[in-house]
Structures are given as C-alpha cells and as structure tokens.
C-alpha cells in the first residue's frame, strides 16, 4: 500500500461501472483444515511414539516407580534414565520439526505442480484458480513457519524454507523473527534481517483489488533493519544497508554498493547523515566498506590493536558518562491549567495502550480458571489412556504395542482435542467471571485518570487481563484464526468473515463489518494511555475495509465502506476516514479513490531509488485463461 504515495499522478482508465465484477473471494476452509490436520497428525506420530516408548519402558520402571528418593541417584540405571529424559524430549522435538517440514514440502510440491507460483498481479475481485492456490500455499506454510521461527531452534528456519522450496536463503544469512518473510524470495549470503522486518512478496490492494505477487531478490551482504517493509518485486543488490524503519515501494531497485537507505518511502542518505544517524566516524564507514582489506591490514597489527582498544575503552567510558548528564533539567513550575491553549491539549499524536502495571494479584483469578479448565482435559486424558496403563508390566512388548495401537494412532488427534477442550474451558470460565465483573462496574467510553483507585481504570485493567489469557491461548494454538470466537464472546461486534488474528487488537468497544482484512502486525486500539489519562473510544470498521501491515489505529477511528489505509501509517484520535478512499501516511491523509478493480492490471512501475526515477513495464496478469476477458489490460504496446 505504501507505494501509493508516489502514485498520485498515475493514470486510471475508467471502465463503465457495470462491467466491473466484485465477487467476494472465499477461503477454502475445507482444504485448510484437511492440510492442517494432516501436517499436525503426522508431526506428532513418530515423535509421540518415541517419547512414550521411552517413558513407559525406561522412565516409568526405573525412575517413577522407585520408592526411595536416594535410590534414584545411587542406582546407575535410574540416574541414566533420568538424565537421558530431557535429551529424549529434545530429540522428539527435533523429530517433530523435521516431520512438519517433510509434510509441508509434499503439499507444497503438489500445489506447485497443479498451479505453479509465478510473478504477476492476481485480481482479487474475480474468483480464480491462481488466487485459490496462492491462498492455499500461504496457509500451509504458516504452521511450519511459526513452529520453526518461534520455537526452540530458530536456527533451523533457514533450512526449513530451503527444504520446502518456498524461498532460497543463502549461507550465513540470519532472518530474525518477522511477520511475513516466507515465500517467493531469494536471499543471498551473509545477509542480516532485523526483528519484525518484512519481506512481503505479496501485497493486497483493497478487498476488491489486486494481490501483487512478485519474486523478490536480495543480494549478498545486505542489512535490512528492524521493522523494514520490502515491497514485492523489489531488487536489493549487494551491499545495500537499510536503516530501521526504512521501507520500499513495490518494484524498487536498490543499487547497493555500500549505500545507506532510510525513510518511508526510503531514499539514499549520504555520508554526513549516516554518520549523524548512527553515531559513527568516517573510519567506521571506511571499515564497513572495505572490510576485507581492513582485516588483512589488521592481521599484522594485532598487538597494536589490543593496545589501541584499551585506550579506546577508557575514552568511551568517559564519553558515555558525559552523555548522560546532557539532559537539561526542566524546572518544576506550577502550571495554570486554564492557560493551556487548545493546540497544547489536542491529541494529535498516537502512543500506545499497553497497561503500565502488571498485578501479580491477577494470578489469584487465573489459578481457579486454569485449574477448572485443566480438570476437564485431565479427565479426558484419564479416560483415553485407561487401557494403556498396564503397558510396562506386559512381558511381550510387541504384543502390547499391537494391543494399544489405536491409542497410539489416535494420540495426535487426542492432543488436538485436549488443547481445544482446555481453551473452551478457559473461555467459558473467564466469560462467567467477566459477566460478574461487568455487573459490578459497567464498561464505558470516555477519558479517565489512569491511576490506581480510579474504578474505571482499575476495572479496565482487570477486564483486559481476564480476556488476555484466553486470547493468548487461542492465538498460540495450532489454528489461530479460531480467535474470532473469543473476540465475539468478549464483546467485539464481528463475524467469521473478518480476520483479526494477525493484529494486536483491543477487545472492548470495537465494531467490525463484513470481510474486513487487517494487515499483519497492525495495532487496533480502542484505548490509549496519554500521560496521566486513559482514553477509551469505540473504533468502527465498515464492510470491506482494509488495514495495512504495521499500521496503528487510534481510538475513535471510523473507517467507511471499502476504504483502505496503507502500511506503516497511523491515524489520530477520533479520525473519520471517508468511504471508498485510500489513505496513507503519519498521520494518514487521503491519497486517491479506491479504484483498484477498475485499473489496468498489467502495468508494473519500477522505481530506481538511487536515481529517483520510474520506468514502466508490461507484465502478464496471473489469472486463469478463461477469466482474462474480465480484467482490464492495456493495448499491448
């Protein structure tokens, strides 16, 4: 969405309104569930089998059934099986990761064979096979990606992407955890990508618009700072250094060659600014440019360098001390509240809504909720394993495995059922408590003092904490898009056609219409803490609204029908965004009318950032042959 800032002047050739089709694109949830359950089932099968075999045959008789505490440590058999247990758990975890990768790879290959992923714009207002398979592929990657990048061994995630074949990642490259950098990208060697940086090879423009889906190239020795957004089709060549929060438009070409880029949308910055922003000296920059030459020179001067370092150390400690005293003391003076102007007090900036105090006393509420919910699943588990408890006493191992084969084979499904039974239990018990709390104190909109003992603030904190645990569990569960159930129960007006699972979202005072798409990492706040005050105001999204990734929506925002707000933008308190318009920026301003469905789809505008110029190219539209007549294409010159 970002690139629209530069597209104000681009030509929009209108088609008469009757010709434009606006179909709602549906997700194939049947296929999603099938793929997910297969991946999930197979992942637990081998790992669970190995674990239980060890648990029942080694651990149970040698450790658990030993009656004296001291014997565990004196008996060699016991101590070995105790010490091996954590290693077995780690091994099972790795087995699980590998089986997820293998299953995902098989599914990926099958879909690639049916409808290969290729560059091009996928129209989002007409149903097509290309769009269906694009969605399917995005979905199947999600589980594995989250498991790898957010798991115990994030170092394996490069291997995962390469193995599945969704993208190519070079040697020595580190991709930090991020929102979306998974498919259709090639990354060179020795590249670093910061936290929350997004390599978005796909980009949705409006609910009835396009999906921009283009391969992305990133060269060797590139740095992409934290929270950078790289648009689809971008070509970032060797030795480009992007500072944090620099973002490209789509189809940007960065020439690299030891250049620094910064800003939204990003532009080249020169030496003085780089030194200013990064607090570097000219020597440091030289080092950065000619690393190898520097290293060779240094090999000869190791001893000298050591001495220098010691000196530098002393210098630096002095300088950092000087730095801390620099803040000028603002004198405390009594300010007459009446004298402040309207501009002084207008909320024309956006902050955040995270709670400032974490109360450990909330734990008292959680313990009964978690215990009651846990009771349900442990009884389920007891019933499930009733037959298998004499397992270790059987003399014939193969016979006993065969006898309990159904227990073993249904184990992954039992785990899945248990997870959701637990979440359901937590949901119901916290909802009951919530009803009770709301009877004591009705939630209401307004501006409140954010101090303990102010009932509005206290109860807001309490409600938030209470709802948090269920949402946390649902969003960490294998099917995170099920969180709309909890959101609905806790008071968000929405239906299952909208997706909020990739966004941070308040659960009070939010109304969401049909088919609303909230981008990855967006923040939707109906409450905001400014200084001493807590502001609560309803946020309303009408039907078919789209919110870009990493966008901040302030309380009181109202977005009209079919309107779009771009990535890395923010609205201010009580903003009203007109229907059918595209907004972008900090603060968001109207750019142009939302006419993605009427535009030409085959035109690609390449942006050369270093020379700051644009070129136009014609590119084929990625849609089924029989549906090509419905979309607008140029004369083919």
């Amino acid at each position, binding site marked *: 969405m970002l690139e629209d800032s530069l597209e104000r002047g681009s030509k929009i050739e209108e088609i008469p309104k009757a010709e434009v089709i606006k179909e709602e694109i549906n997700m194939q949830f049947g296929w999603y569930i099938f793929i997910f359950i297969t991946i999930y089932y197979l992942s637990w099968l081998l790992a669970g089998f190995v674990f239980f075999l060890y648990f029942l045959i080694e651990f149970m008789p040698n450790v658990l059934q030993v009656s004296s505490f001291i014997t565990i440590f004196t008996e060699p058999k016991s101590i070995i099986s105790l010490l091996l*247990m954590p290693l077995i758990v780690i091994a099972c975890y790795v087995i699980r990761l590998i089986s997820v990768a293998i299953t995902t790879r098989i599914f990926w290959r099958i879909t690639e064979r049916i409808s290969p992923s290729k560059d091009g714009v996928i129209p989002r207002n007409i149903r097509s096979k290309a769009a269906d398979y694009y969605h399917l592929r995005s979905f199947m990657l999600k589980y594995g990606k989250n498991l790898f990048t957010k798991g115990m061994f994030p170092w394996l995630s490069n291997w995962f992407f390469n193995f599945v074949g969704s993208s190519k990642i070079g040697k020595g490259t580190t991709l930090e955890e991020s929102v979306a950098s998974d498919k259709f990208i090639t990354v060179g060697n020795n590249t670093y990508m910061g936290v929350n940086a997004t390599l978005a090879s796909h980009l949705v423009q409006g609910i009835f618009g396009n999906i921009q889906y283009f391969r992305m190239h990133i060269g060797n020795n590139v740095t992409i700072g934290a929270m950078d957004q790289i648009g689809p089709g971008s070509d970032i060549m060797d030795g480009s250094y992007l500072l*944090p929060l620099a973002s490209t438009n789509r189809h940007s070409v960065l020439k690299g060659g030891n250049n620094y880029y910064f800003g939204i949308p990003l532009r080249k910055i020169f030496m003085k600014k780089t030194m200013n922003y990064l607090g570097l000296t000219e020597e*440091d920059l030289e080092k950065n440019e000619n690393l190898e030459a520097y290293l060779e020179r240094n090999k000869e001067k190791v001893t000298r360098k050591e001495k220098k370092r010691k000196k530098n150390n002393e210098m630096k400690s002095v300088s950092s001390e000087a730095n801390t005293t620099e803040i000028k003391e603002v004198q405390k003076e009594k300010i007459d509240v009446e004298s402040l102007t309207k501009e002084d007090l207008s909320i024309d900036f*956006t902050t955040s809504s995270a709670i400032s105090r974490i109360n450990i006393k909330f734990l008292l509420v959680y313990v009964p909720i978690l215990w009651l919910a846990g009771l349900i699943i442990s*009884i389920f588990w007891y019933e499930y394993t009733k037959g298998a408890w004499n397992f270790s006493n059987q003399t014939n191992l193969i016979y006993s495995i065969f006898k309990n084969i159904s227990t073993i084979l249904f184990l992954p499904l039992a785990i899945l059922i248990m997870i959701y039974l637990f979440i359901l239990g937590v949901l119901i018990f916290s909802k009951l408590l919530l009803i009770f709390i709301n009877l004591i104190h009705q939630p209401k909109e307004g501006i409140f003092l954010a101090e303990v003992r102010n009932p509005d603030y206290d109860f807001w904190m309490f409600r938030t904490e209470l709802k948090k645990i269920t949402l946390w569990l649902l969003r960490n569960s294998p099917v995170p898009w099920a969180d709309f159930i909890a959101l609905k129960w806790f008071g968000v007006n929405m239906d299952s056609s909208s997706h909020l699972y990739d966004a941070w979202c308040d659960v009070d005072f939010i109304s969401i219409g049909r088919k609303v798409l909230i981008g990855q990492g967006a923040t939707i706040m109906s409450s905001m803490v400014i200084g001493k005050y807590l502001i609560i105001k309803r946020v309303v999204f009408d039907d078919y609204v789209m919110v870009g990734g990493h966008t901040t929506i302030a309380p*009181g925002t109202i977005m009209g029908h079919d309107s779009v707000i771009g990535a890395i933008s923010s609205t201010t308190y009580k903003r009203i965004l007109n229907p059918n318009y595209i907004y972008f920026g900090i603060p968001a301003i109207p750019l142009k009318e939302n006419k993605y469905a009427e535009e030409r789809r085959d035109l690609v505008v390449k942006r050369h950032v270093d020379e700051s110029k644009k070129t136009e190219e014609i590119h084929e539209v990625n849609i089924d042959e029989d549906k090509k007549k419905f979309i607008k294409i140029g004369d083919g010159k």
Partner: protein
Amino acid sequence: MSIPNSMRVGPFLPTILVKKRYLIFYILIVWLSAIPLFIEFWVYYRFVWSSIRPIFFFIYLPLLLLPMYLTLAFSAMIWAKLILIFVNWSHSPREGVFLRHPSDKDYRYWSLRNTIKRWPFWVCHRFPFPFLDNVCFKVFNVKTKFSNSLFEGWVDTEFISFGKDVVCGQGAIIQSSVIIGNLLIIKKTIIEDDVRIGSHAIVMPGTHIGNKSVLAANSVTTVGQVLKDNWIYVGIPCKEFKRNWFFEDGLEDKLGVAEDINALLGKYEKIITKVRWTEGLTLKERKAIKRQQKEAEERRWELSKERDEENHEDVF
C-alpha cells in the same frame, strides 16, 4: 489485547550464531534445566498416584503444571547465569563499534551471550503472565521495575536501563545493539521514569529518553539521541513536537481532537523536513562545514569510481 502469534517476536535476543559450537551451551542449559522437572514429577507421582484410584492423580495434575513451569524457568535462569558469569569473566561485554565478522572477538562473544540467554528468555516470554520477563531481566542485570510494561514489544537484554512506570507500545523495538552492514554498534540505552513509547516505534542504541517524555507511534530515534524531559517526540527520525502537558491534573474535559488534518500534516512535515542545519551558525562556520562536506563527497565519489572500475575489470 493480546499480541498475535505472528507479531509476538521474542525472546528478546538476536538469533545470530557465529559459530555452530555455541549451540552446545544452549543444549546444555536446556538439558540441565529440565532435570528438576522430572524429579518434581517423581515426587508428585509418589505421593498422589494410586493404581486403584488414578483419578486423583489427574485432578491435581493441572495444579502441578504451574510450579513445574516456574521450576523450569528459574533453573534455566540459574544455569544460564552461571555460565554467563564464566563467559563474562573471560571477556567482559563492552560498548563500541565492532565488526560483524567472526574474527572480531566482541562480536563473537556478543553472539555467545545471546545464545546462552536465549533459553531462559524463551521460557519466560512464552509464559502467559508477563511478570516472569521482569524477573528474567533482573536476573541478567537489566535495571528495571515491576511497574514497567515491556512485553508487547521487543527489548534488548543488556546495556539498557529503565526507570519506573515505563510503557513500551505494541510491537515497539528498544535496542542497545544494532547491525548495519559490517558493523555492530553497541551503546547503552537509558529510559527514565514515566516514559511512553508508542506502538511500532524504534529506539536505537545510545538513546537517552528523559522523564515523562513521549515517543509517538511509528517514530524512530537516532543512535545517541537525547530526548528532553516532558516533551513529545514525533517523526522519522524523531524531533520535538510539543510540550507534554498530559501529566497535569484536571484535564479530563479539556482534551481535544485535531480537527484540521491538513494543518496537522503541515505541522508534522515542518518537524520532519524543515529544520535546517544552518540555524544558529555564523557565516564562517557554515562555509567551513560546506567545504568539509564537499571534500567528503569528492572523496566518496572517487572511491566509488575506483570501485566501479574494479567491477568492470571483473566483468570483462
């Protein structure tokens, strides 16, 4: 409300692994920290298990899981801390500009420290209740208070200190080390009392944010920037926007809305682009700076020219 799975980045440590053998430390800590769990389980099993009435075993099992998780977290912290003391004794962490190359000792040890701290932070950050993160920060010598809320964002785990009542927004990133090109910059970040950091804001290493200051959403500071007390900062990179009056009493009915969005945009743009570097300088100083700039540019130009020529030789 709750941070989504995709956005919930953290543990608060970079995943860079300079040498593969650092993983040995990681697995060692995982292994050592898991053993107490099984001993705890043994105790529970001995006391509660009865083959005639196994149902009691299952009824209290959910209550056992909480202490088991806490045991895992605390033993992970203890083991990691012990190993970290040993590592820091052999090479103490320090600030400065280092090379992102395996031959640089500071870079290697930075990566090693992160690998060691990863497991306790991972366990604490996965815990649904955020107070464990605070304990973990305190164990690893980050100055912080329990009244701070830092868990919706991403916070570095060394060379950083917080005052009290700091609010870090959703998806905000507070760094004390950053990688740019072949350089690793480590500098101490100081955040004082009552600071509000907006969502998706980035605090770069070496930033000093004063009391009751606000860094607005989607803003970024520069390395070593000092933000004054009682001001609101906005922009990329951030500049002074207006005084922060929002800590005064009795403003409930007076807080207003920015109605004219174009005027507001003008105000933002003024901050972001129109501050001139020449302000407050004499003519001589300006000329001297310009000359320096020109020379630097020329040098740069020649360097890039040489490089281009070299590249051409490679091609042909």
